[in-house]
C-alpha cells in the first residue's frame, strides 16, 4: 500500500528516545521500578534456591542419604527377615555405575534401657569406614565421638534420648532387639557419643552402633537391610532409573529421599509456590507502572499524535512509536534489573546471609543460619523473559489507543 519508507523506522527510534529523555525523571522512575522488581525476583529465587539446597542437603546428609536401597517392602515395614539377599551384587552395580558414595546398614526396631527407664528406638548398625561418605552424622556428635573401625558394642544416642535415660558418656546402656527369627536378644553397650543436632528427628529415637556389632547381636553376619547413597540433587532421578534397570532381577526398592519423606519435597514446592505468587505481584507492578507512564505520555501527546497523523503518519507508525518507547523502557529496566540482581546474588553468594536472628534455636528444620543464594539459570531465564514480555505487553494498550485517535478530534481537543 505505502511506498517503502526506509528512514521512518530510524525516525521512530529517534522520536521515542527523545520523548523518553525529555521526561527523564518519569522514564527513570519506570525503568527503576522494573529494575528493582526484577532484581528482587532474581535475588529471591536465588535465596530460595540456596535455602532449599542447604536444607535438602542437610536433611539428606543428616541420616537418610539421597537414595536408599532395601528389600521390597522393607521401608513400609522394616523387618530383619527382609534383608537384602545379594548385597555384593548391589555394591558391584553401584561401583560400575560410578556411584562411589554408598554405605551399608543393618536397621531394626529395638529398645534402649538404663537403670531408670526404657525408650523405643531404631537400632542402626553403620559401617564406620564408609558412613562418612554418605552422611555427615559425625559432625553432629556434640559430646564424645563417632564410631571407629574396630569398635565393639559401642553406642551413640541422641541428646534427648540420653537425657531421658539419664545416661552419660561412658555409661552402660542395655540394648534390646529381636533377631531375624523374632527371638529377643539383649546386650550391654558403652555410650561413646551423643548427637546434639538441635533437630528433633535426630536427637531422639535412634541408637547407633557399628554394623559388625549389630550383625553379631541379631545373628546376621554379613547381612544388611539398607544401602545408603549420597548423590548431588540433580543426579538422583537418573540414578534411580538406572539402578532400577540394572538391579531388576532382585526384589529391591530403590527410593530417593523425596519418596521416603515426601513432606520435605512438598514443603519446597509450597515455598516455591509463594514465589510464583510474588512473581505475579511483581509482573503486575511492572505492567501497571509502565502502563501508567505510557498512558500518561500518550494522553499528554494526543494533539501531537493527531498532528503526526494529519501530516501523513500512518496509524501503524504512531502505534510503533509507543511500542518502541515501551521496548526501550522494558529493555533498559530488564538489563539494569538483571545486572542489579546478579550483583546482589554474587555478593551475598560470597558473604552469605545470616539468618540466626530470624531462626530460633529450637526447631531449625535442617537450615543453616548462613544461607548462600545460588543462581538457577533456568529460572533466571524465565523470570527475565516474563518481565521483558510484560513490559512489552504494557505498551500494547497505549499504542492501540493512540492508533485509534481521530486526527481532527485529537488536534482540536488534545
Amino acid at each position, binding site marked *: *500500500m505505502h511506498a517503502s519508507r526506509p*528512514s521512518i523506522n530510524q525516525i521512530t527510534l529517534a522520536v521515542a528516545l527523545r520523548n523518553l529523555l525529555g521526561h527523564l525523571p518519569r522514564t527513570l522512575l519506570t525503568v527503576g521500578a522494573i529494575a528493582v522488581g526484577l532484581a528482587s525476583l532474581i535475588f529471591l529465587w536465588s535465596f530460595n534456591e540456596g535455602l532449599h539446597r542447604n536444607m535438602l542437603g542437610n536433611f539428606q546428609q543428616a541420616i537418610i542419604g539421597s537414595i536408599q536401597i532395601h528389600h521390597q517392602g522393607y521401608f513400609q515395614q522394616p523387618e530383619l527377615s527382609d534383608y537384602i539377599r545379594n548385597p555384593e551384587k548391589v555394591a558391584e552395580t553401584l561401583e560400575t555405575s560410578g556411584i562411589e558414595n554408598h554405605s551399608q546398614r543393618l536397621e531394626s526396631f529395638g529398645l534402649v534401657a538404663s537403670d531408670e527407664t526404657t525408650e523405643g528406638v531404631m537400632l542402626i548398625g553403620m559401617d564406620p569406614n564408609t558412613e562418612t561418605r554418605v552422611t555427615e552424622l559425625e559432625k553432629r556428635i556434640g559430646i564424645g565421638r563417632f564410631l571407629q573401625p574396630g569398635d565393639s558394642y559401642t553406642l551413640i544416642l541422641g541428646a534427648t534420648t540420653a537425657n531421658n535415660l539419664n545416661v552419660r558418656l561412658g555409661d552402660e546402656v542395655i540394648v534390646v532387639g529381636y533377631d531375624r527369627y523374632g527371638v529377643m536378644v539383649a546386650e550391654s553397650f558403652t555410650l561413646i557419643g551423643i548427637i546434639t543436632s538441635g533437630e528433633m528427628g535426630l536427637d531422639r529415637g535412634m541408637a547407633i552402633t557399628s554394623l559388625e556389632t549389630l550383625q553379631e547381636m541379631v545373628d546376621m553376619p554379613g547381612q544388611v537391610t539398607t544401602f545408603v547413597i549420597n548423590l548431588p540433587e540433580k543426579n538422583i532421578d537418573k540414578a534411580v532409573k538406572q539402578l532400577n534397570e540394572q538391579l531388576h532381577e532382585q526384589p529391591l526398592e530403590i527410593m530417593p529421599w523425596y519418596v521416603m519423606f515426601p513432606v520435605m519435597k512438598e514443603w519446597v514446592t509450597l515455598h516455591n509456590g509463594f514465589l510464583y505468587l510474588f512473581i505475579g505481584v511483581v509482573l503486575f507492578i511492572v505492567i501497571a507502572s509502565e502502563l501508567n507512564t505510557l498512558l500518561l505520555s500518550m494522553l499528554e501527546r494526543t494533539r501531537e499524535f493527531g498532528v503526526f497523523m*494529519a501530516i*501523513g503518519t500512518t496509524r501503524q507508525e504512531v502505534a510503533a512509536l509507543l511500542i518502541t518507547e515501551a521496548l526501550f523502557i522494558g529493555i533498559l529496566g530488564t538489563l539494569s534489573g538483571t545486572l542489579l540482581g546478579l550483583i546482589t546474588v554474587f555478593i551475598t553468594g560470597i558473604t552469605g546471609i545470616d539468618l540466626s536472628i530470624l531462626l530460633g534455636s529450637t526447631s531449625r528444620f535442617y537450615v543453616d543460619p548462613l544461607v548462600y543464594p545460588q543462581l538457577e539459570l533456568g529460572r533466571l531465564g524465565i523470570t527475565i523473559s516474563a518481565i521483558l514480555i510484560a513490559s512489552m505487553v504494557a505498551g500494547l494498550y497505549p499504542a492501540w489507543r493512540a492508533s485509534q485517535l481521530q486526527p481532527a*478530534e485529537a488536534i482540536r481537543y488534545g
Partner: protein
Amino acid sequence: MTSIIKTRDLHKCYWVGTMPHPALHGIDLDIEQGEFAVLAGRSGSGKSTLLNIIGALESADSGSVEVFDQNILQMTQDRRTRFRLDHIGFVFQAYNLIRVFSARENIAYVCQLQGKSKEESLEIANHWLREVEIEHLGYRKPDQLSGGQQQRVAIARALATEPQIILADEPTANLDTQTGRNLIHLMQGLNQRLGTTFLISSHDPDVKEAASRLIKLADGQIVDEWSTIPKPPISISSACPVQNKPLGERVRIKLNRMFSRRRRKQSPKDNSRHS
C-alpha cells in the same frame, strides 16, 4: 478552469452523547486551482469542520467531497492518510510542530514520510526554510522559536511535500498584527509564485483583504455577502437527523428526549406543591 475541490450538499453534525451540535448544513463549494480563498465567519460557524472534511481529517454525515476528482469520503483511513500526505498541506492556528524535532527536522520529516532519503529530505527542508526566510533558525526546536517563526516552519512543512492545496485554519489568530501581516504576505507570495491553492479560514480582516475570493459561513451554511435576505434558520432536527444514527443510539436519543420532556412537564407541578 476546473475546480480541484468540489463539495455538494455537505452535512455534518456532532453528537455529544445524545446532544446534537449542528456544524455544516448543505455546503456546496467549488475551489479552483490557484485560488487564495478565505473562509470567513464567526466562531462556531463551521470553518474548521469544513477544512477538516476537505482535508480528509474527518468524515461528513452526507453529501460528497471531491478533491482532484477523488471522493475522499469513501476512502479508508489509511487511504486518507496517504491522500493527505500527497495532496494536502495543513497549517494550524496553534502551529502544531512536533516538539522533539528541530525546525529543519519538522520539515524533513514529511519528505521522509514520502519515502525520500534522510539526506535528500534535509536538503529539501533547507530549501523551504529559505523560502519562508528563516534558514538561520533550522536547528532550533519549536520552543526556541517565536509564534511567527513557528508558523513559518509550519508553512514550510506544509509545502515541502509539494501539495496542490494548503488548508490553513486561522493561521494568524495567535499572532500579533504585524507578524500576521508578514505571514499573509508570505503566503500570498508563495501562492503566486508556486500556484499552490490556498484555502484559509480566518476572521482576521487582513487575511480577508488578501483574499482572491471570500466565502462567508454562518451557522454551517454559505451565505452570500451581498445578499440582504437572510437564510432561514435551520432546525436542529433537520440538521442532525436521528435517522442517520445506528438503532441503539436512536433509541437512546429518543428516550432521552422523552424523559427530559417529562421532567420539564413535572417540574411546575412540583413547584406548585411547594409554594
